[in-house]
């Protein structure tokens, strides 16, 4: 599904910053992967490159058999829209749109008619247990609800892959658990999910943990039993 070969990325500036120094990574369809690392390790840059939000300088990136290289902004937007679902730490819902409108927005950019996209959005909200909150604005929702709206928005285009950037970073441990349960559930339905996090509690709920340090992959750890983790259920989130 995802194949990264020797990816390099340098941020130009007064002092050029070599963030990614040759990343090789292969994520198969249906895998549930965590990218873990301390802040500054390059994990967010990696996620941006995976999400076609940022370009890379060297190497090769294949997403679902499509080479992602030197795309025009318009093509990149189209790929993001159709192939990738984003979940952000700060939810990134549009504050003046209600839950349904937020969820339906990606379909708007696909040119789907209003009635159809709102109906679909409602379906997805229902699936995430937010049917009663469909017409509330983000300001009227709790953090967990907001993240669930964001997940619904990520799912509505039926993307190949879900990219989650610290999905539990702004949530308390209880809601974090809920959100992780949803992600696991999606994984069980066969979706490919990549989670970027610095919390080991989150990382150890996935099946495969990619440790990044100073722009290179330190090691890849297979987590055979995601439900049992070294920190115990109480301490796992924070």
């Amino acid at each position: 599904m995802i194949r990264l070969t020797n990816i390099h990325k340098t941020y130009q500036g007064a002092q050029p910053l070599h963030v990614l120094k040759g990343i090789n990574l292969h994520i198969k369809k249906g895998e549930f992967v965590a990218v873990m690392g301390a802040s500054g390790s390059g994990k967010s840059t990696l996620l941006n490159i995976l999400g076609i939000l940022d370009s890379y300088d060297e190497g090769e990136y294949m997403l679902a058999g499509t080479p992602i290289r030197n795309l025009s902004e318009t093509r990149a937007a189209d790929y993001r829209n159709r192939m990738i679902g984003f979940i952000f730490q700060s939810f990134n819902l549009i504050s003046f749109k209600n839950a349904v409108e937020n969820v339906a927005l990606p379909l708007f950019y696909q040119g789907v008619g209003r009635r159809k996209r709102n109906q679909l959005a409602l379906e997805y909200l229902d699936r995430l247990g937010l049917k009663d909150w469909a017409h509330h604005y983000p300001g009227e929702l709790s953090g967990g609800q907001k993240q669930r709206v964001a997940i619904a928005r990520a799912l509505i285009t039926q993307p190949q892959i879900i990219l989650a950037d610290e999905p539990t970073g702004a949530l308390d441990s209880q809601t974090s658990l809920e959100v992780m349960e949803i992600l696991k559930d999606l994984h069980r339905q066969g979706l490919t999910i990549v989670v970027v996090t610095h919390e080991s509690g989150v990382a150890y709920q996935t099946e495969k943990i990619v440790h990044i340090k100073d722009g290179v992959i330190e090691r890849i750890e297979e987590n055979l039993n995601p439900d049992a983790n070294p920190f115990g259920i109480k301490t796992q989130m924070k």
Partner: protein
Amino acid sequence: MRLFDIDRWEEIFDSLSKNRTRSILTAFGIFWGVFMLILLMGGGRGLETMLGSNLAGFASNSGFIFAENTGKPYKGFRRGRYWCIELNDVKRVKNCVEGVDVATPIIQNWGGTAMAGNHSCSVTVSGERSDYAQVDDPKIRFGRPLNDVDDMQHRKVCVVGTRIVEELFPELGKEDPCGRFIQLDGVYYCIVGVSGKSANGISLGGNAQTMVHLPYGTMQQTYNRGNRVDMLALTALPGYKMSDVQARTEQLLKRAHVIHPEDTEAVMKLNTEAVFAMIDNLFRGVSILVWMIGLGTLLAGAIGVSNIMIVTVKERTTEIGIRRAIGATPLDILSMVMSESVVLTLLSGMSGITLAVLILQGMEVGLRETAPDAQFQISFGVAVGAASLLAVLGLVAGLAPAIRAMKIKPVDAMREE
């Protein structure tokens, strides 16, 4: 692009209406600019038509000549000699002066009193030939104007101003007074027409509403005027300037009456052309000022819109970043900001036009009594022009912020928290 997709418009109105304060603030500049422009234009036009109605009926290329005492001794005559324009001169001017269209004599009596029954009214009596109507149209409301037969047969008929009818025949109300008789200095005249000229218009010899117009011959005979003419009224043929025609007439009169050719006092001239030109210039100046102020305000409004849009784009960085992240192309964002700007400009501009039009209409209705001919309302064409100007302004104003918005990278959405 899906430019005419109804969804798109919903999206625009959605983001405008959900950010009401921002939209209203942005819209106000344009609203005020258009409002002022239209109001000023209407006001200028109203003033122009109001003044124009005062001049209405007067030929814009007419002139009047009076005799005054001479100012220079000449050929044995002393200075300060009395002389008169005579009927012969009228014929002479008509035949000999190049560029003259109408040359017609006028005699007037000031401070007369017209009577009918128990009522009386102070009037000015004016003797005119039928061709005087080409210089100063009496704007006949009832009956007919004076004609050549009235003049030749010295008929005792008259055309009167509206005020005279009101004063002498109050029982008539607004009805036709033709056929009634009025008495002037012991002689009865039959009313054959009523002049509809307004009180504040230009007229020679006082208020047009208290003017009794008699046939020239009748007045000449009744008041024992002989050949002496009070005034010579002229109009110029198309293509001739009144001032030139008057100068030639003056030279002719001076030769005929043995007056020094350089005498500047003996011949008094009045020239409507000059008056009209002055008023024309005045209004040209006024309209230039109106456009400058109006467009200036509008431009300031557009710059204001552009400014606020730039600020909002900055404020909306996250939102735009999110939109980009979930699949909006740069073109989507560009057209989003641009169309918001155009819609905002058009909406506010239209409401500005509407309010200004309403106020102008109110002014027109309110002033109908005092100035019936004043037109404050702008034409439909001007309104359409203003609206399309607004659309262009909106596009231009939206351009800078839209380009700035287009450059926002989706990564920015995540950076700003």
